[in-house]
């Protein structure tokens, strides 16, 4: 009874297996990288691609506050002076026409579940089977 090595070593093995769980879980398969839908009907977005990738959620959040709380609905893109309406449904989703093929690809990969679509209406999916949500 003076040595508890049996229990300790069992615990240690469990711990090491637990710590390295992602290795066993992925079994050396990195999976496929998300490939969001390419936009066909527009050449440029409201901001450069790298910036959109990193900060689109902050931009949308800003838009939401601007539009709803301050009533400021215009968005001025400095590069070409073009005005866009600050709207997820009316601006973003007009070019990125599919939530499933655009938004969801990366969000599912990174396990991000934004609550936009709890209320906002996603565009009708071309190949969807009647369920747009």
């Amino acid at each position, binding site marked *: 009874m003076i040595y508890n090595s049996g229990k300790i070593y069992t615990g240690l093995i469990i711990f090491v297996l637990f710590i390295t769980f992602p290795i066993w879980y992925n079994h050396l398969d990195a999976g496929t990288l998300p490939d969001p839908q390419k936009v066909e009907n527009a050449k440029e977005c409201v901001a450069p691609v790298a910036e959109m990738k990193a900060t689109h959620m902050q931009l949308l959040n800003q838009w*939401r506050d601007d539009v709803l709380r301050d*009533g400021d609905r215009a968005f001025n893109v400095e590069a070409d002076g073009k005005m866009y309406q600050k709207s997820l*449904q009316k601006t973003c989703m007009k070019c990125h026409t599919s939530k499933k093929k655009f938004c969801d690809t990366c969000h599912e990969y990174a396990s991000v579940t934004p609550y936009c679509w709890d*209320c906002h*209406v996603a565009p009708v999916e071309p190949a969807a089977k009647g369920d747009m949500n």
Partner: protein
Amino acid sequence: MDKNRRNFLKVAGISTLAGLGAPAIVDRVISGKGEGEVFASGGAAGHHGAEPTEHHGEGNTESHKEEKTGTRYGMVIDTRQFNANPKLGVKCVDACHKMHNVPEFPKGDKNEIKWIWLTNHENAFPEHSQQFKDKDTADNKVLVTCNHCENPPCVRACPTKATFKNKDGIVMMDFHRCIGCRFCMAACPYGARSFNWLEPKTILPTPTNPDYPRRMRGVVEKCNFCADRLALGEKPACVAAAGHSGAMIFGDLNDPNSEIRKVLKENFTIQRKPSLGTNPSVFYIV
């Protein structure tokens, strides 16, 4: 000993009451508004005739300053027109609810959502005499909606600032922030707010207006004077539905040259529950 305790309780009680009452009195004094004036202002607004700004005397609180300079959207509902054309009210309600993806519910459903609706005269104007009603009043319903009060009690009640008065005097709902506590519903004296007890997605699987969002379960919703349409220079959906009948007039109450102010000047109008001092922005020609 007993007497001392009695005296102590007396003094303690009185000072507690004084302590509780003092801030309210101090507020009144600071805002330069006597108690009489508060009631006077409410009452006068009820029998609207003169300039609305006049009622506030030397009131110098921030909201009053803002009110004079900024926009304050309001609406006049001419019940005579609605009485003359009984289908018009339903048309306005439908236009609004279709525009904002408000699902239809069976009549009297406790889960009902309504932004604008028709109600009996005694429910719309409970402060008015209902004895010996004329035929028009007894037979017809009144179109009611959120009053976008100048002094909205719901905004004061909201703990997250999900409901707020925007720069155009519209009482807005920010559904992103609403936590569903329903304090605003308790605070609203007009029952203008509805709570989403059910998931809107399941009741309304296909939105009637795909450009407008639905809500989610557990948030409060109400009329927003079609703030999104106003931004595009359009009239609210109900006003547009009423068309050129003149049954609904929409405009800026703070602009003395606006159409709505002209109508208000030419007609005797009433507000709903004026004695509460909320100063509704929806006026009725009865």
